[in-house]
């Protein structure tokens, strides 16, 4: 790892993000818009008096789901663009180490992801009236970590994708199982044992568990800490794997 080439790559990727106003606007606005849409979907669903409707639980869960999925899509395409335009091959002929490139992408996009989470949380708390027992800061932390996992997995997936078409196929593969098994549709405790095991190795499960913890508890216990550590470990693991699997020379 070389601080200079890492910093240069981070700056370059941020410059690219800033140059593309439309993409930046979409990254920041789309999750909040989707959640707002969901709010109206549930708004008129009748609930017995004194019982909370389904939306607040789903909204808080979405604060973990949307950032991870959207940043996965953004990152895998961005990295693939680097490959298909020939700049990636060119970079391999420069002193840049792949760890510096991967870390540069992770840093630039994680910064964007934090902004995205801030916008999403602001809309959720102030506009959609969702409340949590725990502090909003914890929600932002989990949302940011969740999107970092998405970034890391996007970089890893793009190492295996040769074409845009393949990259798009990775999205349902990455997104589908995690949505089904994360506890949003069915509580993980109620799923068959085999699926619980699968859920245990999927990062989104930990994000959803952490967020439901923040929603229900004012104090963060060891369960929450474990979820956050697990998410960070997933992100670090995927980044390391991405750096290892990205080949410098090709067949």
């Amino acid at each position, binding site marked *: 790892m070389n601080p200079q080439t890492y910093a240069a790559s981070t700056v370059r990727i941020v410059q690219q993000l800033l140059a593309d106003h439309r993409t930046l606007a979409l990254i920041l606005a789309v999750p909040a818009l989707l959640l707002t849409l969901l709010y109206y979907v549930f708004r008129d669903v009748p609930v017995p008096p004194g019982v909370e409707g389904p939306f607040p639980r789903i909204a808080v869960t979405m604060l973990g789901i949307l950032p991870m999925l959207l940043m996965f899509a953004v990152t895998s395409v961005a990295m693939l663009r680097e490959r298909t335009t020939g700049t990636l091959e*060119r970079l391999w002929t420069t002193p840049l180490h792949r760890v510096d490139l991967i870390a540069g992408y992770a840093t630039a996009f994680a910064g964007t992801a934090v902004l995205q989470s801030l916008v999403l949380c602001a809309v959720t708390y102030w506009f959609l009236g969702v409340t949590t027992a725990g502090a909003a800061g914890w929600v932002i932390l989990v949302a940011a970590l969740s999107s970092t996992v998405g970034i890391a997995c996007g970089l890893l997936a793009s190492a295996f994708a040769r074409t845009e078409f393949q990259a798009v196929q990775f999205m349902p593969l990455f997104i589908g199982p995690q949505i089904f098994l994360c506890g949003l549709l069915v509580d993980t405790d109620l799923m068959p044992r085999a699926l619980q095991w699968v859920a245990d190795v999927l990062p989104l499960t930990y994000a959803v568990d952490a967020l439901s913890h923040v929603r229900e508890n004012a104090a963060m216990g060891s369960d929450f800490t474990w979820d956050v550590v697990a998410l960070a470990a997933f992100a670090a693991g995927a980044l390391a794997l991405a750096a290892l699997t990205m080949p410098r020379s090709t067949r």
Partner: protein
Amino acid sequence: MMTSSADDFATPQRRPRHRADVDTDVDTGIDTGAGTPASGTTGGADAVVAIEGLVVRKAGREILRGVDLRLPAGSITGLFGPSGCGKTTLMRSIVGVQKTHGGRVVVLGARPGSRELRSDVGYVTQAAAVYKDLTLLQNVRYFARLYGASDDQVQETIRTVGLTGQARQKVSSMSGGQASRASLACALVARPKLLILDEPTVGLDPVTREELWGHFRAIAGGGTAIMVSSHVMDEAGHCDRLVLMRDGTILSRTTPAALLETTGSATYDQAFLAVIAHGEAA
């Protein structure tokens, strides 16, 4: 006309002359690749690039079938041949982004793509591989940081390629020729000892092509070894040395003047066809 010159070239009585050229070990002979690896080449120990018996296979097919080549410092070597003959694969092998399956490639005394070489070898890919959504200055500055080059070098390089007025323009809004020069600048900023240019003039108008060749000549004048590939034979006249390739082998290592003379052709296109005919007859 072309057919007759090719037939003429392949006649047995003319062949000994070319063999003799090879034996004198000067850089003018038509070497069909059947000779010893180092024959018909210049630059012995001081060669910037030395390739012996290079073999590259892709999907079971041999793309390069035992290529021998040496590039001396301060000269422009033109790599010519039809599309798909292995030019790009050969260049990728030299810069170290290609998996090879046999033979040896030594660049400035080291393995291609090794860490100590990366600031000394510039690679300009076929399509202008720069960040088109960024300005020229942002692109050149990024590559300068990667190579550890100074900001002064950034300005100087932009001046060298004649794009001072376009420094703050996005590459996406540039013309084809300007984008090619932007891509060249990103390699030049390292002040490389070896510059590999893959079809840098493809799709450009004659005036722009001429300008680019002027840049290449100036860079070579500074001592950089340059290898330029092209499938437009007309450009052969700009080179010091020529390497003609076909089907993964080198048909000939020669000079522009010698190529025209030995084939008795009026144009480089005809000369190349004559060399192919000669190679097939041999």
